[in-house]
């Protein structure tokens, strides 16, 4: 018997069903080398993510200059021994700016994602456990929220309350909460029918115990992989907002704003615009690869 998957596989597309490869290449299944349970692509993802997380923590210590210091009158400078990643539109050191920006990018996106997934999951469990009108109300409200395009919503929020880091986090969190809610609710409804939950109910446990101790741990894996994807979306949403000048405001800068504020250097191929874009791409690709290979173990 194959090991029972610890998660109810309704949402994750491939539950580990033993029914197998219907297509022709069954014999071609070569055992891939796995380290930490990850395929080579997954390892690449892990390395990228780990690199950027380390940069977020230690980046400012490593950075050669202060992020705001104007060092040169030459702008959009190329890669040189003075500016490892070139200089920006004011003649500031791009390497330092990217390193400082790592915190904003990862921090903002991480907090927003955690909020979205955390509250989404919490509400989903409340919704699934309580059922009835509360369930309908929450589901309907989130449906309505999901139908407003995310950038429009962000735009209205920023227009209403001014752009601040706190507001960006709240906006991104609200934008991505409905999706997290939907997925977590489907999971919770599934887990709730599991017999161990019934056993706990029949034992007389309170709903807090049931949701937190019995249900949550068994939803956490798909919720986490969803969280990873959401993180990518938040990074992209924030960079999109930066493009519309609604994102993180100077002198602070996340990578999206770095791309944005230097975009006029693109025509001359300035590293100042390419490097932060590269940073965004590597981070999101890394997260994607990592998640794909966590989830797709048996594919």
């Amino acid at each position, binding site marked *: 018997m194959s090991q029972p998957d610890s998660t109810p596989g309704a949402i994750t597309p491939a539950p580990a069903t033993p029914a197998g490869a219907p297509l022709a290449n069954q014999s071609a299944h070569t055992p891939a080398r796995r380290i930490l349970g990850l395929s080579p692509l997954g390892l690449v993802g892990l390395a990228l993510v780990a690199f950027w997380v380390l940069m977020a923590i230690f980046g400012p210590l490593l950075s050669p200059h202060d992020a*705001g210091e*104007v060092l040169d009158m030459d*702008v959009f400078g190329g890669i040189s021994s003075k500016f490892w990643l070139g200089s920006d539109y*004011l003649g500031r050191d791009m390497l330092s700016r990217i390193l400082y920006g790592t915190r904003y990018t990862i921090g903002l996106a991480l907090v927003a994602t955690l909020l979205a997934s955390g509250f989404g999951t919490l509400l989903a469990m409340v919704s699934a456990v309580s059922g009835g009108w509360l369930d309908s109300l929450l589901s309907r409200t989130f449906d309505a929220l999901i139908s407003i395009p995310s950038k429009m919503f962000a735009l209205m929020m920023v*227009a209403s309350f*001014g752009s601040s880091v706190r507001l960006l986090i709240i906006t991104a969190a609200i934008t991505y909460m409905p999706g997290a809610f939907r997925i977590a609710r489907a999971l919770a409804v599934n887990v709730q029918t599991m017999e161990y939950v019934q056993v706990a109910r029949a034992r007389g446990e309170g709903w807090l115990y049931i949701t937190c101790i019995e249900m949550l741990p068994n939803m956490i894996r798909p919720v986490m992989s969803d969280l990873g994807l959401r993180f990518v979306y938040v990074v992209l949403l924030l960079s999109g907002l930066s493009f519309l000048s609604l994102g993180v*405001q100077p*002198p602070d800068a996340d990578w999206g704003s770095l791309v944005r504020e230097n975009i006029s250097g693109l025509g*001359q191929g300035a590293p100042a615009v390419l490097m932060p874009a590269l940073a965004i791409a590597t981070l999101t690709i890394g997260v994607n690869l990592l998640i794909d290979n966590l989830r797709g173990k048996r594919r």
Partner: protein
Amino acid sequence: QAATTPATPRRGGKVKIATQSSSTADTLDPAKTSHSTDYTRAHLFYNGLTKLDIKLAPVMVLAEEMNTDDATLWTVKLRKDVRFHDGKPLTPADVVFSLMRHKDPATGSKVKAIADQIESVKASGANEVQIKLTGPNADLPVILATAQFLIIRDGTTSFTKANGTGAFKCSEFTPGVRTVGVRNNEYWKPGMPYLDEIEIFGIPDEAARVNALLSGDVHWINEVNPRSTSRIKATPDFGILETKSGLYSDLVIRQDSAPGKSMDFTLGMKYLIDRQQIKTAAFRGYAVVANDQPIDPTNRFFFAGLPQRPYDPDKAKFHLGKAGVLGSTPIPLVASVAAAGSVDMAMLMQQSAQKIGLTLDVKRLPADGYWSNQWMKVPLGFGNINPRPSADILFTQFFKSDATWNESGWKNEQFDQLLVQARGQTDFAKRKQMYADMQVLIHEKGGIGIPVFITNLEGYSTKIKGIEPIPLGAFMNYTSGEYIWLSA
């Protein structure tokens, strides 16, 4: 480097102009025009009584002549044989209507404050009107050259199509999308305009605007970022048009609240401005160092004798120390993209401040609502002042103690008296001296720091001929439509 003007203009062709802004607020009502796109559009379809030449001196357009004895009562002779696009001739009633409507709040005119100087406008003959002002103002012909005072037909209430006397007829106008004008064959200036058709639309994104120019999709753009100039210059068949003007973004230190109340704080902040750095870093050299007073060197009243205030961290430190703000809690400094270059300036000031132990907390706010809610309300922020046709208008609107837009809340009786005296003064030398005194007052006591006058940068295709920059606004002070032509 204005394009040289070959002798014979060529007729025909279509020109596309892309401006920096366009929205559903776009309008064909001259009274409501509020930015370069609107002005440019309005000048295609309407004429004013006057216009400004390249030296900012007034030139007659629909007015044949304007006469006055006391600078208070003006007689305007109108040009004959001018027809609106609907075929009706221009009459004094049109002028009366066009000028008087600004005084009605319901019109929502952008120049109501200025128009309130006009006491009445009356027809005084078949082709003559009389304008009576509430007080003397020798600059009336200059004032009437602004876009809002363009002449529309008597009784016009709907502005879905333009009915003016201008060189082009409106063939399409979609707010936020585009405006298309086709040649008005009955235009009263013989042989003009040269173009068959002209199209204006907005491309808010600067990079996109430059790309559109370089890819040949448009012929002329404004608001070019100094950082894009090298790219445009490097591309054959494209040029950069530099127009030095009185445009400036200024540091506004409110004189009526916390740190700004102390004169030492104000002075300290002025010494903290590294004008040279701002000029090179923020504007890539496309700016003229300013001296904390609003009259720019192109203006005939510019006082060259005023000593330049240097960037002096020591003096700044001394004054700010006296004001007691060093090392203490961060002071918020509000900037916005609404005030061009202010964000960069704020960041550069923050860096300078850090060196002397002053912590500036730069807050960048969205352009949205900036003018209503932040500008002139925060203790330390930025403003952005477009060039005004006359020193008087500028001083009256922004520096008089009771001015609507007295940015820093500055109050100076001596200044106010000088301003009123200068209006009635007809002797140029004496007048210039008065303006010089006022400039000194603002320089020393005013609550604003003006780092630089910003050079207007436009990009154009060298196929366009006939360009003569006017140091007030882009696109030849927005009137380019009727003067330019396309080379083969």
